[in-house]
């Protein structure tokens, strides 16, 4: 998270065994951050750059997207980065973008 440039980034491999407990501080922080977000300030960028995530993290990502959606903030750009050599990565993007069409998640191939 870089508050100065309003960048929130999830990067790398995520396979915590106690996923909900592990991510709880992050989801709680996000709720507070969006609650006090000034609509006149700069747009927020959220990048998902997971190389791999376990099944428990799958649900956490849904929870994070729920939090974003419930915030009602329009000035959020969400990017889903995926390996263009991997079909799985794009399928994950499709699952999240289909489930949250109003968030207009953008796919970025690398």
């Amino acid at each position, binding site marked *: 998270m870089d508050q100065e440039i309003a960048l929130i980034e999830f990067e790398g491999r995520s*396979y915590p*065994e*106690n*996923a*909900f*407990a592990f991510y709880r501080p992050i989801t709680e922080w996000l709720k507070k951050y969006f609650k006090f977000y000034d609509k006149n300030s700069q747009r927020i960028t959220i990048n998902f750059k997971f190389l*791999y995530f*376990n*099944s*428990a993290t*799958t*649900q956490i990502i*849904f929870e994070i997207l*729920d939090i974003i959606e419930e915030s009602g903030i329009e000035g959020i750009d969400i990017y889903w980065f995926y*390996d263009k*050599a*991997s*079909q*799985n990565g794009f*399928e994950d993007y499709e*699952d999240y973008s*289909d*489930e949250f069409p109003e968030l207009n998640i953008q796919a970025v191939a690398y």
Partner: protein
Amino acid sequence: MDKNLKICIKIDDNVIYEFAGDIDKPTMINAANEIEALLLEKSLEKDKVKNVFELFIETAQNIRNYSYQTIETANGSNGTFCNFSLAYCTLSDTYVLESCNLIKERQQKVIEQKIDAIKGLDCKALRKLVRQKSRSAEDRHDKGAGLGYIMMARKSSAPMEVAFSPYKKGILMYKQKLFI
């Protein structure tokens, strides 16, 4: 666990990786990285390597979640005894990830219900189920969403095989075979 519980897979005489011992978090991560490195050395397609890596993690986490007992390992973290191996079948270009561990008898029903719920579902239906379960509180606990078996089915190239056999009173031996 007795030594005779060790599983030996011989498919094309090509067992790639074997493990028998106490698996804790550092051991699991180390084994996953070793498996990934081994497969990448062979320059396999990325999705396949990723699927093997992912299913190994899901398997190991299930072993730890469903284990009948937790012990303190030499690393000072919580572990449980298990065997697993990864083999490659050249004829079908399939990886076989087999594991064996001990579970409490009551876990059999839980596991069977999870497997029954996904039996016969195609990839599209499995994806839909992941989305449904992810958005509901059903099966949710601090360790996850109960999605492990769905993910295993989704990333497998053939239905998983599981077997339960008595070990001692209240304890079962659980064997699982995944095809990737």
